[in-house]
């Protein structure tokens, strides 16, 4: 299925979403409040459930944070990229660890590196960073560590 056909199918279900076809895959931006519902619908989407979450990450745009979910359907190989913009000062989003189990680890990683708070996550402890790093998010663009970081 090409991007255009996929967009028509998805747009019928997700009325609040904004679509962008310029990239490699179809991009879909949804409001943070709708994300959990959108995720559940995508996971059980008709003939081609998006069951494979192959990349979950976050981008710091200095004014906002953007969560990026790369989803793929194993049955038809259709891929959609879902983006959710978050408030940089108080980033909160519903966890999808119950829907795609891989999100458990990936969300823990994003939580400590970007400081995104995942609501209803089963186990949001530090994964990579040592204890005592709570509140310092090294992947944020304004993170400074004069001792260990070398500016190039």
């Amino acid at each position, binding site marked *: 299925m090409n991007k255009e056909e996929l967009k028509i199918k998805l747009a019928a279900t997700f009325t609040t979403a904004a679509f962008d076809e*310029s*990239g*490699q*895959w179809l991009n879909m931006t949804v409001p943070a409040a709708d994300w959990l519902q959108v995720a559940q619908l995508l996971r059980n989407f008709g003939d081609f459930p998006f*069951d*494979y*979450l*192959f*990349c979950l*990450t976050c*981008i*710091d745009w200095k004014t906002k944070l953007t969560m*990026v979910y*790369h989803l793929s359907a*194993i049955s038809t*190989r259709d891929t959609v990229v879902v983006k959710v913009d978050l408030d940089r000062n108080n980033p909160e989003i519903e966890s999808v660890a119950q829907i*795609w*189990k*891989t999100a*458990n*680890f*990936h969300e823990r*990683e994003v939580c400590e590196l970007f400081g995104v708070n995942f609501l209803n996550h089963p186990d949001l*402890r*530090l*994964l*990579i*960073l*040592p*204890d005592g790093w709570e509140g310092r998010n*090294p*992947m944020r663009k304004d993170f400074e560590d004069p001792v260990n970081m070398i*500016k*190039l």
Partner: protein
Amino acid sequence: MYRQSEILDRSGHDGYMVINVGPQHPATHGVLHFVITLNGETIIKLEPHIGYIHRSIEKMCESLNYRQFVYTTSRMDYLSSHINNHACCLAVEKGLELEIPPRAQIIRILMDELTRLASHQLWWGSMAMDIGALTPFFHAFREREMITDIFEDTCGTRLTMNYMVPGGVMADLHPDFQQKVKVFLKQFQEKLPEYDELVTGNIIFQNRTKGVGILSKEDAISYGVSGPTARASGVSCDVRKLYPYGVYDKLDFKEITDTGCDTWARYIVRMEEMRQSIHIIEQLIDNIPDGDFQAKTKAVLKLPKGEYYSRVETARGELGVYIVSEGGTTPYRIKFRSPGFSNLSAMETMVKGGKIGDFVAVMGSVDLVIPDIDR
């Protein structure tokens, strides 16, 4: 690095025993720490603690330009360094819309498949060693040594190759390359039945692996597992077949899947993959076209504003490189979707309810490389 853990606090109250495997343990093949809760010999809970060798490569890459950042990826999955470099080059080339000379294309695939063989050989030796057979390790390294010698001739290094660059490969092949690869192929094909005799047909090995570490197809998909680990659970996920890059679409090879879902199936899938890799190399080794080994590129590479995602099949699974560019000479954000990270998260499902003795066999079959998990 001691991490507060719920299960550590609970120990002693309900008769469960908590043991630590790692951070320094021969079975973890690196600095990986498992906190395992046991009821007798049965695993109740397994909690991986990672990050001991996290170098924050993603953050580092944000200040490196598009030629430099490729080299950091050799240090991620050091057993698949050629393939990691390939993924990065593909992403950059996608952004620059570069056409790669045919000679470079073929060289890249040859190097990728040799890397896969070397990686699977090391896995084979170390998995057998984990289970208690020491001899296979030396057999595997005998052949692996030949591959690293071939790499050393052409790339100058034996582990972190840094051979692929955006636009092609860094240098032309060593004059002895073809001849040495043929000698290696001949020897490896002779020895492969010996591998089977030594380990595959070994009844002790079969008893240790069959029906152990079950990962169902649904779980494999849900956990985002990829590579031989997922294919052994019946998930068709070979990037070389599904999203062909390079010249893989013109080659004859099979995607190996198995529906066994257990440690034995993962073992069989990897053994068959070695044969497929040999088959791919055989098709290409006499057909390396003449010509340039590198496309002409500008000295300073600038990716147009946008997002680029490339993926390749490493020896462990699907490696994704996600570049967000703002139009400058360095990536604004880069994310490496490493196969090991997702595969590790499925470990608990595989070993839960099993015996502690089987844990090591399952670990071996998942083939984790720790720098790939930590990045």
